[in-house]
């Protein structure tokens, strides 16, 4: 489809770009007026456009992007979480109000990048979209200009990020060399004919590094805790949700199409002959979840603990990915959806606590359970869900992840590692619960009650219960994406 025709499938992205630019312009001319209304309206329009967006476009922009149900779904969840972050960001006490417009614009650029990540099918677009997400993210991490930690976070992020994307780029260049094309469907055709798997292996590994860095897979997880801790909490909340979804979207699409026996997202995949990358993913996923959980055990900083918890959740999702069945990617998509919301809810709670009670360490959370009883109760729900216990949706999601493992009868050992890990994870999640309810209170009363934050925390936590009892519609919907 040519470029002009393709634009009809590109309207949300266009509006995002326009909004981002306009936010900056507005900031220049508006003399410190709040842009909340503007952003809200824009977000609403984007949502409307997304709602209008057809999902049968196929390849657009001359095979650079693709428009399908899979990407549309991911766009939705990415949009919701990013939108929530943008709306909630006005409550953040850390951010300098002067830079609010820049913050919004940067977030919108990242949103654009993530949209592109979900539907890139060309190596160039893959690289560009990842960079489009990364570069504003470096800035976001360093938003607090005078804060040493924030500065350090952004430094580490930029070095690590460009290093990883450099490696990926090198891998991409080899892939290009092997196949002579940059479109992944074309490459897929060529790769099937090549009988020396070693070259493909090399580029596969390098590309995995690029994607792995985006989703914090071990050993690419190193940046995560430091960046999460140093960044403003609102940014951390954002990092822990939407980019992970985008990363998984691009990982699933690229790896499923490129490195398996099939080029479609609707049938179970087999590895290419001689290239058993499933095993590598399995091993790495075991490492990821183990590292995430073990390191989370001894954390005192809540944000850092949640960072490690994010890593461990990525491990769980990779665990299912290693089976490369359709059930697995349905499970991952499903879990990702649930995870994003429960995690955001937990992070919003952290924001709320930091704003109101000025505490950052777990053991300072004492008595919060009685100071804000309702939020704390929902926080418990989110934590229980993160730990994967009934009666919460986290449990349902985890069941699906484990199920794929047992259903495909591969990697039973991985299942055991996974189960052991979920036991370990209980400990640190419940450390927070314990602190909230059992410890002596050292904090003062809740000062203000931001309604929007309340709303999002309750909404995102409520899904833990709702999708526990009625996950079926959602799951069915996701299943249809892959048929």
């Amino acid at each position: 489809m040519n470029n002009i025709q393709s634009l009809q499938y590109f309207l949300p992205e266009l509006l995002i770009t326009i909004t981002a630019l306009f936010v900056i312009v507005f900031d220049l001319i508006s003399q410190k007026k709040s842009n909340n209304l503007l952003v809200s309206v824009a977000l609403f329009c984007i949502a409307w456009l997304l709602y209008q967006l057809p999902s049968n476009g196929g390849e657009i922009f001359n095979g650079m992007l693709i428009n399908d149900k899979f990407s549309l779904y991911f766009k939705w969840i990415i949009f919701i979480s990013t939108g929530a972050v943008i709306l909630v960001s006005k409550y953040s006490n850390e951010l300098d109000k002067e830079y609010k417009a820049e913050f919004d614009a940067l977030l919108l650029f990242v949103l654009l990048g993530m949209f592109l990540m979900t539907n890139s099918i060309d190596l160039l677009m893959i690289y560009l979209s990842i960079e489009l997400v990364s570069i504003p993210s470096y800035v976001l991490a360093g938003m607090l200009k005078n804060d040493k930690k924030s500065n350090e976070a952004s430094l580490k992020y930029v070095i690590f990020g460009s290093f990883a994307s450099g490696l990926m780029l090198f891998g991409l260049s080899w892939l290009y060399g092997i196949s002579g094309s940059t479109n992944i469907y074309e490459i897929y055709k060529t790769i099937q004919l090549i009988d020396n798997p070693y070259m493909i292996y090399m580029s596969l590994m390098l590309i995995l590094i690029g994607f792995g860095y985006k989703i914090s897979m071990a050993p690419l997880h190193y940046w995560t805790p430091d960046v999460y801790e140093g960044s403003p909490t609102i940014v951390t909340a954002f990092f822990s949700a939407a980019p992970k979804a985008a990363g998984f979207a691009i990982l699933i699409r690229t790896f499923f199409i490129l490195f398996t026996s099939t080029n479609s997202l609707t049938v179970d995949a087999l590895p290419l002959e001689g290239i058993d990358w499933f095993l590598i993913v399995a091993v790495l996923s075991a490492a990821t979840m183990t590292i995430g959980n073990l390191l989370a055990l001894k954390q005192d900083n809540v944000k850092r603990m949640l960072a490690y918890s994010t890593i461990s959740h990525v491990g769980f999702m990779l665990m299912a990915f290693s089976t490369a069945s359709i059930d697995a990617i349905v499970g991952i998509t499903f879990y990702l959806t649930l995870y994003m919301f429960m995690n955001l809810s937990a992070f919003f709670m952290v924001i709320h606590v930091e704003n109101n009670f000025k505490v950052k360490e777990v053991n300072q959370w004492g008595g919060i359970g009685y100071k804000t009883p309702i939020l704390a109760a929902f926080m418990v729900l989110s934590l229980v869900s993160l730990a994967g216990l009934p009666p919460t949706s986290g449990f349902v999601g985890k069941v699906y992840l484990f199920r794929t493992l047992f259903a495909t009868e591969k990697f039973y050992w991985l299942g055991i590692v996974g189960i052991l890990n979920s036991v370990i994870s209980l400990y640190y999640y419940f450390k927070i619960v314990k602190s909230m309810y059992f410890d002596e209170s050292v904090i003062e009363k809740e000062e203000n009650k931001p309604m929007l934050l309340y709303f999002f925390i309750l909404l995102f936590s409520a899904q833990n219960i709702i999708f526990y009892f009625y996950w079926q519609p959602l799951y069915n919907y996701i299943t249809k994406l892959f048929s």
Partner: protein
Amino acid sequence: MNYIQPFLMLASILFCLGLYAVITRKNAVAILMGIELILNSANINFITFNRFGAYRTLDGHVFTIFVIVLAAAEAAVALAIIINLFKNIGTVDVDQAKEMKG
């Protein structure tokens, strides 16, 4: 005659040098330079493959141009961050930035 080998060798050497620089240099700017080396080694690869692969399109070349642009953008952001770092802790030695760990 196939001249592809030397170019690829060059790219690989550059890649390794880049890695080496990234890992060993303590100066943040030098690390950035190492990353540029990695990116450029990939660029050489792209161009080499496009030239010797007898591919009809110019995908490789286009790719390279985009990478150069992106590298510039990245460097701009990175340098800004490094300057800020210098403002905050008075050095660009990355080893000094280790407040967060564990």
